[in-house]
């Protein structure tokens, strides 16, 4: 048992820290947002240069072939600097589903081809097995008909991974097949939205859209779930970076801001709140490690660790973000500080691939299954 980083991992972490410091210039961040930029293209290009977009891509496909720890280190830096890039979807989730020989991997590593996952349907809430979108054979191929209610970072995607039902009923685990659809496909309508986190997401409407099968027909759910679990851990690492940024900036504020003739940090009630924020960060980090290190464990152990982390980190993140705003007072509610933007991003991360309540139930079910 070991929670220390290898020398290579330490170098990566240092490099990520420098990246986060450079891209953490908040006035510049706001200018890019105000200009309507859909994602941080400059940061994305630099990440491609550094090889980070290929961290989870096999070496044979031009990536670095690293594991969840390295992914985590990069994602933490993104969170710390509020970097608006489609990292978890395009560089973590997608590579987990694409074959080593898939030509899309080259574009992912180069940052020139973004892939987004369209796993949500309006009637299914957070249930991955709820797939009403239907795939029908047509000639030698397939066409898709249906709608997807939420695609994280989908506004700028070049390709979509779309689960569709090839057999079975709407919520059956079996009979789901994964498909690849280019953003330019005929019959595909991409409805683009800006999120409260200033990421640009999408909804899809598919009307007789031609698509390519990804993986096994009727056997898409298990690999999808495994890939989503990897994306969840990357998002939790991002949340971790955000939470620690909030913790640190709030602590610094308490030490400098004066009220009633004393620094805020001299008031015991606020000290204790700050301590609880620090504890929440420790809890979250501990769960993040447990989840990252069990991504390759047997399925129930993986589920329990990932869902446990998603449930509790979500709660800890909400606590930290709410208290960061509260302790900053009025300025914490303004658009002009990063504080409120971290809150907004953390709020969105909570709903990505299932909110705290959903994952608490999934955690309980996995706990039961392991005890049985």
């Amino acid at each position, binding site marked *: 048992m070991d929670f220390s980083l290898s020398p290579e991992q330490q170098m990566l972490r240092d490099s990520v820290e420098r990246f986060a410091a450079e891209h953490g210039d908040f006035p510049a961040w706001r200018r890019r947002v105000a200009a309507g930029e859909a994602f941080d293209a400059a940061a994305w290009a630099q990440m491609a240069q550094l090889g980070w977009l290929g961290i989870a891509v096999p070496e044979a496909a031009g990536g670095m072939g690293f594991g969840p720890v390295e992914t985590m280190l990069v994602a933490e830096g993104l969170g710390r600097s509020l970097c608006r890039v489609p990292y978890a979807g395009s560089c973590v989730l997608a590579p987990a589903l694409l074959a080593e020989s898939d030509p899309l991997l080259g574009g992912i590593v180069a940052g020139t081809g973004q892939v987004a996952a369209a796993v*949500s349907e*309006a*009637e*299914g*809430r*957070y*249930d991955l097995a709820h797939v009403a979108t239907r795939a029908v054979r047509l000639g030698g191929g397939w066409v898709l008909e249906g709608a997807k*209610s*939420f695609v*994280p970072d989908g*506004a700028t995607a070049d390709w979509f991974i779309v689960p569709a039902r090839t057999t079975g009923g709407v*919520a059956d685990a079996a009979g789901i097949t994964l498909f690849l659809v280019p953003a330019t496909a005929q019959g595909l309508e991409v*409805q*683009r*939205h*800006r*999120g*409260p*986190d200033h990421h640009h*997401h999408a*909804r899809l409407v598919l009307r007789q859209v031609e698509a390519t099968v990804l993986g096994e027909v009727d056997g898409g759910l298990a690999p999808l779930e495994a890939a989503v679990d990897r994306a969840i851990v990357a998002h939790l690492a991002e949340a971790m970076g955000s939470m620690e940024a909030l913790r640190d900036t709030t602590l610094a504020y308490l030490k400098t*801001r004066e*009220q*009633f003739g004393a620094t805020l940090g001299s*008031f015991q*009630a*606020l000290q204790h709140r700050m301590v609880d924020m620090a504890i929440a960060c420790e809890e979250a980090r501990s769960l993040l490690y447990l989840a990252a290190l069990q991504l390759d464990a047997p399925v129930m152990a993986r589920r329990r660790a990932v869902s446990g982390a998603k449930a509790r980190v979500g709660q800890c993140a*909400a606590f930290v973000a*709410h208290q960061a*705003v*509260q302790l900053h*007072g*009025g300025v*914490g*509610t*303004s*658009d*002009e500080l990063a504080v*409120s*933007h971290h*809150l*907004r991003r953390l*709020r*969105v991360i909570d*709903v*990505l691939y299932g*909110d705290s*309540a959903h994952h*608490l*139930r999934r955690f309980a079910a996995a706990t039961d299954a392991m005890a049985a």
Partner: protein
Amino acid sequence: MNLAFSAAEEAFRQEVRAFLAANVDGPMREMVRTGMRPEPAEIQAWQRRMHAQGWSAPTWPREHGGTGWSPTQYFIYETEAARAYAPVQPHQGLELIGPIIFTYGSEAQKAKYLPRILSGEAWWCQGYSEPGAGSDLASLKTRAVRDGDHYVVNGQKIWTSYAQAATNIFCLVRTEVKPRKQEGISLLLIDMDTPGIRVRPIITLDERHHVNEVFFDEVRVPAENLVGEEGKGWGYGKVLLDRERGISAAGALRLAQFVRVVKERAAAVRAAGGALLAEPDFRTKLAQIEVEMLALEGMSLRTLADAEAGVDSGPRGSMLKIRWSELVQRITELWAEALGTDAALMEPYAGVEAADDMPHATAAYLHMRVTTIYGGANEVQRNIIARRALGL
């Protein structure tokens, strides 16, 4: 002890209900129902309707143009207004500066300012908070120096709600530096079109523009706009404390609006084959909020009955503020939770249709973070209760 209303009070309720049914139009109703705050112009339009009905100032005594309603009548009005999704009236003029003017102002000030507050023509904003002061309001630095029959004001205010639409601002300014920082503060009434006033918008985390910074650069204010005595401005706010009890008690009622909209959304959302509203976890969270709201309602009713009887409610006003703000945050969190992934969508690209209450729920959730900060942060409220009510 009893919870019954008198026959006269029940008749009054019918009158209010009829008025609201006739006057709250569809678009307004929808805006209030989905938690959006109407723009000043819309609130002013509502105030004009209330004025036409003779109800422009439900909490003012008759002699100053108010309705002279009893606290119970006010409570009935607010209950019905919440049920009918009527907008709230312009708060700053009616509840903050109006009562100070009719209590401490000169006859000339009463004659000049009160009618325009009642009619909705004037829109007031509050120049109290300053950068660097926060909940420690009395450490304000904006200076007013007497120069002949004018005061010359220099300084800066912040978190000024709707300064962008206001016709007037009431400002606490420092006219003298005294060892006790609460002394030497004066209250000035200032026209917003006076030269030297500059308003800078602050966009808040809900992406709305409702607060501002207001800068004063050599702003000349006629000395007749001083309320009461020079240097005594800090004390005039006290008249609001007693009034506030009844008002915050009534305000607690508006929470029910959010619960209704959460239930509507959760009834429409599908989860595990049924409505989210029927999902046990969600139902428990909602019931927990509702039972705490019932407690708040009980606290409000007791406060109101105290006000009616002229009895001191002790710290219950601060307690209501604390509990109300905590609950409104939890309700709007639950609303956003009900949205699911829709909570991740704030604004559609051009040409895309917006979905239902989607941006409103998220904006409401974000906006409500401020309720535990403004009007004296909840931490300060707890300090006050500890000191004044518990003697700690």
